[in-house]
């Protein structure tokens, strides 16, 4: 057995570790071990690669790993749990640019390439480039560094079509002109043009999408970053890149699909409709009736008497960082003999599983979390539904108002609970910019104010007893 065989068998082993790691991610009890196993696979893949006899100088490798490693560790240590969506967005971008650079470096040595390899390089660059700039824009929208409203302008479609056409033509010339045999300056120029157009395409693809749809975009870009790695794998003819890239690609696509289903919209609608742009926004307060405000002391009497309470957290819990206070309130309620559950909507917050992570951070056991399908059928038996900064995911319009843009989206039907208390700062709309008739229902009470402060006052009422 020679070295090449050993190296390749190690790549097989690394792929097995990735797969097995993902399999363990199927249950919260084993997920942490799964992530560790996956990281061992990565370590193995990196270490055997260092033994490759094509590597003659380790200086810059060490520099690259050191710089990237330090940045990665610092980010991972310091990022707040509420900042996860932004972090995932920017990391997708890094994955994309890395694959682009691998393709570029492979194009560079000046040696001829077969058309097949050139196609793989062009794909790695195209997908990687789109992923990079698209992720940066998504990051900007999420972090609200740029407007989260869709950016639309006249002739946008035409510009985009021209860009797509340009990249196709450039790609065809680059890959198939004179059989790819010579690099040549002209070809190199075309290659750089592809890089630039990919970057522009990434920006153009994401700016017309509203901030509320960024989670879908991020999942899709996650998928793209995997596909870029796949393409890079075809460039350097390496299995483990292909396997891992395909796993990531599948993961992103599945999450995209889950979110679209949870919003009852098609992916095409998310990407191209400019949902949430000024023209569709409604904004503003109560035109549908009168909301009934409540003060913490009165809210306390209601929940103190309740036998069963569900918490329905939303993006506002993340903004207010209220998760710890919420857990404390839940414990007070339980000590009071009340049955407590957390109902988590799949698109509550700003990324899939967002609420779950925050509640996990606050030590809420995951077996206390239920999904809409579990809780909706027994909603009538719930004494109090406490809505903590959620809005769109509890909007009855999805069931009642056929003209609503979110009509048909599955929601948590808190309006069918005996009493519903909504904690938010105002009657303003949520991220989808849609009026919420829940606030004006007979059995709804509005507990205005920052969610953390409101919850803390409720806890204080319990403790003051």
């Amino acid at each position, binding site marked *: 057995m020679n070295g090449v065989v050993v190296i390749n068998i190690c790549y097989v082993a690394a792929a097995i570790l990735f797969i097995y790691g993902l*399999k363990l991610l199927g249950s919260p009890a084993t997920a942490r071990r799964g992530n560790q196993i996956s990281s061992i696979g990565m370590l193995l893949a990196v270490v055997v690669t260092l033994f490759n006899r094509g590597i003659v*100088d380790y200086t810059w490798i060490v520099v*690259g790993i050191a710089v990237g490693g330090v940045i990665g560790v610092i980010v991972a240590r310091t990022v707040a749990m509420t900042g996860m969506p932004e972090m995932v967005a920017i990391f*997708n971008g890094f*994955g994309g640019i890395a694959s682009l650079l*691998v393709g570029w470096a492979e194009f560079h040595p000046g040696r001829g390439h077969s058309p097949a390899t050139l196609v793989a390089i062009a794909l790695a660059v195209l997908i990687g480039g789109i992923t990079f700039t698209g992720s940066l824009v998504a990051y900007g929208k999420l972090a609200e560094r740029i407007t989260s409203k869709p950016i639309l302008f006249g002739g946008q479609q035409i510009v985009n079509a021209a860009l797509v056409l340009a990249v196709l033509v450039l790609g065809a010339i680059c890959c198939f002109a004179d059989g790819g045999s010579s690099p040549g300056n002209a070809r190199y120029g075309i290659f750089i043009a592809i890089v630039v157009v990919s970057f522009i395409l990434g920006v153009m693809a994401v700016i017309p999408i509203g901030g509320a749809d960024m989670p879908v975009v991020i999942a899709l870009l996650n998928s793209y970053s*995997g596909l870029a790695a796949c393409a890079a794998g075809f460039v*350097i003819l390496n299995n483990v890149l292909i396997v891992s890239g395909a796993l*990531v690609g599948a993961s992103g696509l599945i999450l995209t699909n889950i979110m679209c289903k949870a919003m009852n919209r098609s992916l095409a609608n998310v990407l191209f409709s400019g949902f949430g742009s000024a023209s569709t926004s409604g904004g503003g307060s109560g035109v549908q009736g009168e909301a009934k405000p409540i003060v913490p002391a009165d809210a306390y009497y209601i929940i103190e008497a309740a036998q069963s309470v569900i918490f329905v957290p939303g993006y506002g819990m993340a903004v207010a960082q209220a998760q710890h206070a919420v857990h404390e309130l839940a414990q007070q309620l339980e000590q009071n003999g009340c049955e407590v559950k957390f109902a988590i909507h799949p698109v509550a917050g700003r990324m899939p599983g967002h609420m779950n992570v925050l509640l996990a951070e606050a030590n809420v056991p995951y*077996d206390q979390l239920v999904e809409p399908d579990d809780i909706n059928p027994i909603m009538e038996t719930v004494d109090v539904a406490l809505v903590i900064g959620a809005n769109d995911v509890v909007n009855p319009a999805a069931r009642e108002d056929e003209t609503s843009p979110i009509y048909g989206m599955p929601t948590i039907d808190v309006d069918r609970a005996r009493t519903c208390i909504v904690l938010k700062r105002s009657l303003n709309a949520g991220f989808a910019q849609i009026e919420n008739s829940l606030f004006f229902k007979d059995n709804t009470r509005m507990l205005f104010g920052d969610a953390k402060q409101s919850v803390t006052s409720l806890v204080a009422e319990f403790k003051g007893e």
Partner: protein
Amino acid sequence: MIVLSLTPLPADTVPLPVMLLFVLVLSIFLGFELIAKVPSTLHTPLMSGSNAISGITIVGALLSSGSGNGPATTILGTLAVAFAAINVFGGYLVTDRMLAMFRKKDDNS
């Protein structure tokens, strides 16, 4: 009766790109099966974990960075190594940090 022949069976020459295509197809199917089983509770760690996995492109980056094929390749490769390393280190660590927080009922209170 025994004829010495070297009839070229086609498989002897399965072209490498076709094999890689095969691997791609199998991985896609496998990915869908595995990830469809991940519960929604774990979707955020799944995203950050797959960030980390997409850092696998570091393998290609290492080969370029250390290839000694002139400064341009080295620079591009080293940049790729750095970006991919951010993903690998950052992705795995942050995922671990998140997953460490998930507890069952009896683990606490």
